[in-house]
């Protein structure tokens, strides 16, 4: 177990390094001068003096290798650098925005779980029609893009019915539409794998013996089935969290919610390299942590995995 954890941590550090390196070089391949980004973004008419000053201040006149190792050194000290555009510390900026996104993604993950598990338990092997309707709903849910769902929700629940706010407001009411937008497509994915595993479980010998012991069909389903339905869902939750982080870019923009996704989008548009790198690293870190945790939970929920 310890050896496993050590390996996971080493792997995580390697991934962080790889992400930092990839982003560092990828951002330099695309058109756009960092000094321009610092001086008001693309198309700014900054004077040669201003550009020279900025190149000096930010070390952009240094060779690429020196810039790269400089950046890595700062990262090792936990320093994410200074935003080109906002001129503030990237770490503090991300910390400010992180909670909004974390609350949004965790709430969406929880909602997706409830929808997927509920639908799978309700409709799997419940007869031809309910099975088809259930899996049809899952396929549809998994296929809808976030931006479309968000627009439909805004039109229906804000413009027509006036029940829910179209843009973020403080408090849980402002979370409803953004969470639903993120949760529904994810619930579609999770539901499909849960349904498959649940269907297998309901046909397996232990379900048969439970029925033979006289347990009701509902009991078999909700007591024995749920663990089997949940297992693939737990394994997928790490991936799901990553998907939610990228979905947050769209959802935070459409619902005008503060958060990491919107920070990233703004930073990308104006080529704010330190912020883009910082958000990518923090997202990767969060992703790694969640995968480790889900693997642990997986091992606890399924003793077969822990034997090695």
């Amino acid at each position: 177990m310890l050896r496993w954890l050590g390996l996971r941590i080493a792997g995580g550090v390697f991934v962080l390094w790889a992400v930092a390196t990839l982003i560092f070089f990828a951002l330099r391949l695309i058109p756009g001068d960092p000094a321009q980004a610092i001086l008001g973004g693309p198309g700014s008419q900054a004077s040669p003096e201003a550009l020279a000053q900025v190149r000096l201040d930010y070390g952009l006149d240094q060779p690429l290798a020196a810039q790269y190792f400089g950046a890595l050194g700062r990262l090792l000290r936990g320093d994410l650098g200074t935003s080109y555009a906002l001129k503030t510390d990237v770490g503090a900026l991300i910390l400010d925005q992180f909670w909004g996104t974390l609350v949004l993604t965790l709430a969406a993950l929880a909602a997706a779980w409830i929808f997927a598990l509920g639908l799978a338990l309700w409709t799997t092997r419940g007869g031809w029609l309910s099975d088809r309707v259930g899996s049809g709903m899952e396929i549809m849910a998994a296929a809808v893009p976030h931006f479309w769902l968000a627009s439909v929700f805004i039109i229906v629940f804000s413009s027509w019915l006036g029940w829910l706010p179209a843009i973020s407001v403080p408090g849980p009411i402002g979370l409803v539409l953004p969470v639903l937008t993120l949760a529904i497509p994810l619930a579609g994915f999770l539901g499909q794998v849960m349904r498959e595993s649940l269907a297998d479980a309901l046909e397996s010998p232990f379900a048969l013996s439970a029925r033979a012991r006289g347990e009701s069909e509902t009991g078999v389903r909700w007591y024995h089935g749920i663990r089997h339905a949940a297992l693939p869902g737990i394994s997928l939750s790490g991936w799901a969290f990553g998907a939610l982080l990228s979905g947050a870019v769209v959802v935070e923009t459409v619902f005008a919610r503060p958060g990491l996704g919107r920070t990233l989008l703004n930073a990308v548009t104006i080529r704010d390299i330190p912020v883009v790198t910082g958000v990518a690293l923090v997202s990767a870190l969060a992703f790694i942590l969640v995968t480790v945790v889900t693997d642990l939970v997986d091992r606890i929920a399924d003793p077969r995995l822990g034997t090695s």
Partner: protein
Amino acid sequence: MTLSTTKLRSSTLSALALGAGIALMTAGCSAQTSGDGTSSAPTSDAGPVAGGTLVYASGDAEPTCLDPHVGGNYPQALISTQYLESLVSKNTAGEIIPWLATTWTEDADGLGWEFALRDDVTFTDGTPFDAAAVAANIAHLKDPNTASSTGYLAVGKVKEVVAVDDHTVRLELSTPDSALLDSLSQPWVAIESPTALKRSQEENCASPVGTGPFIVDTWVKQDKVALVQNKDYNSPPADAGHTGAALIDRIEWRFIPDSASRYAALQAGQVDVIDNAQPDTIAAAADKNGIAELNAPRPGAANRIELNSSKAPFDDVKVREAFIRAAIVNDGINSLFFGTAERSYSLLSSVEALGLSTPEYFDTDLAQANNLLDAAGWAEHDADGYRVKGGERLSLTFPVSTNQSIPAEQSLFQQIQATVKAAGFEVVLEPMDLSSWYGALAAHEYNLVSAPYTKVGPDVLRILYHSASITPAPSGYFANLAQVNDPEVDALLDEASQVTDPAKRAELYENAQRLVLSQFYVLPLYDQQNHYLHSTAVQGLRAMPTVSTPTFYDVWLDR
């Protein structure tokens, strides 16, 4: 064990994919950013009432700095109009009117201007407004550390600032500048507290201090800027609707990039005013009770397509004319803009008094276009129906900035693409994000381009069509995208920018415009669109006649 190593590898790969995804997004991503200046709201019978909070929702990107000296773009101008003021302003007739300066005189040789300043104005941090403050602001704009890219151009000819006495300031110029007053009226040259300017740039960006009717209270990044009323306010421009403090207590300035969410929030009453209203939304709002429109075209250049005359095929005036004769623009504007935009035949915005409109150069005529192309040697057609000359197809590259061209405009370009095909032109539309777009322009990889330019006054013609503007800035940026390189145009624009006599100035600008228009360098489309929608509870809203930013000084809420 095998299981956990495979898992490790797969999560490693996923994280790498996540990183790569972000990098790819960086490369290919884009976000949306873009009358008579008085609102169409029915006026209320009840008189103005004081108090209340107004919520403004901007579709532009959140400024990275609230001080418009730094950088200097339109989103900064929008918000700083509420808390910063300039030396002079403009009225709807286009005349320069007093603001923080009461009177001004120009030396006979045009090399010096003397401004008498108001002596009863105080910045909201308690610093008195005086000649030294003006000097400190111009020094701030010219300081490379400020990184001003708009304001510093406006004061480019100011060589020295002299405080004659506490409330008289002299600007010494390197060459006469007939655009000086226009330039000084812009929000990017607004006057800030010299005490506040001494703080770090980070601090000054977060809470710039001016003399305006509102004060920056707090700024929660990605969420909102809160502005509160300046109770001691006494310096409205000469054309304001009242005197004394503003009527509303507070403004919440929010950023809602998605246009549908912005409109939904307005309909739901979550916000009171939205900007960047899209044509379909404006049309939909027209028959909604409780929502009114403010249409305030921006000054400076009209939105237009420029034909790059520096290289084939548009180095030949016949080919340029053929393109313009073949392009059917009006039908597209009518259908795509739902009557919200009016076709322009001018280089300048319709709010510019000296703009010259020449519909005669823009009659569509396919037969003439074909004749011109035959005469220019593009006489043969290839299998796809495009014209060819010496084995080369008559193909035009058109990089389109998805940040600056709204969806309706991008569709208009597609319609133009379809109509000029009839004459044998191939137009290759290349949608791209802002940085890539500037990159393509800097590399001269374009035959057609549409780039907005906002500035007060006709001097924008010098920026856009003087041959000096072909020389790129260090960033590769240059403003003369049609690459007009005509000594006659240069001479007219040089003289116009220095002449003191208004009648002579008007004549010179007219001649310069006619020269550029008659050589088919430019296909004008419409004014730079600037539409606001607001709740009819918002009374007394108007746009500043300078750069068409709305001001909330006279606004009161009829809730």
